[in-house]
């Protein structure tokens, strides 16, 4: 048997199966079909907008990019115009006085100790 002989046998067999379908099965198929066709209503037409207007998708995409690009430009432009942050300058600050004076840095690090030393009672080394 060749492929050419096999093909008609397949077709005949399957067509016989279709022809042998009972009325109940055919009726169920029809009901299923009618229900499926009924599904295509307002939803179908809404979905059809892009299908009927294929230009809408690229135009929408371009518009979207334009909006994003404009927003980025505005943000970048406004960030350029921001002035550098300024530090509050308090002329009365004691730290400024220390920083300006010629003070030993070791002293600054142990400032707490020296502060204690200053206020601690002097007992002449009797303890």
């Amino acid at each position, binding site marked *: 048997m060749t492929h050419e002989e096999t093909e008609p*046998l*397949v077709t005949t067999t399957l067509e016989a199966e279709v022809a042998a379908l009972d009325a109940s099965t055919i009726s169920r198929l029809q009901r299923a079909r009618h229900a499926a066709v009924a599904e295509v209503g307002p939803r179908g037409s809404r979905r059809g907008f892009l*299908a009927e207007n294929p230009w809408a998708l690229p135009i929408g995409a371009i518009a979207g990019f334009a909006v994003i690009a404009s927003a980025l430009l505005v943000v970048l432009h406004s960030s350029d115009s921001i002035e550098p942050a300024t530090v509050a300058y308090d002329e009365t600050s004691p730290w400024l006085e220390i920083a300006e004076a010629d003070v030993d840095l070791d002293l600054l690090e142990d400032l707490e100790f020296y502060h204690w030393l200053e206020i601690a009672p002097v007992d002449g080394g009797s303890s």
Partner: protein
Amino acid sequence: MKLALDRFLANVERRALIMAELSTNSRDDAMDVVQEAMFAFARKYANKPEEEWRPLFYRVLQNKMRDWGRRTKLRKRWRIWLQEDASDGAGIDPIQLLADPRGELPEDTLDNQAAMRRVLRTIKTLPTRQREALLLRVWEGMDVAETAKAMGCTSGSVKTHLFRGLSKLRETLDIER
């Protein structure tokens, strides 16, 4: 559009049912698969040009059959896991599920019937892709490009699947003669 869709589905529904039945071995399951395919097709592709409907419908049908296969496998696993009787339906000869022969059968018709049953049995045993290619190309009469679209593969794959399917079918029929 509804009229055209109804006409199209009426044209393919019976063949779709037989195709699904060859995969599922069950008329009821096949009916469910076809119904799901019709709904999905109507929802998603009714707005496509009519000349694209046929491959798209069969693509949806193949997907639904695969979904059915996955669900069935999963259900079987659960049954085994729950130690239920997993033999439900497994012992049924698929041939028994086919439609009854019609009318009175002379001897030559009996031979034809036997040959047809052999063909059906062999088609059922083909690997899924080979069966899909065979049914869509040979029975549905779709060209290679349409079949490739319906199967979601290349034209070369369609030719390969079809050749292997036909070869296996031919070999089996030759042996059983």
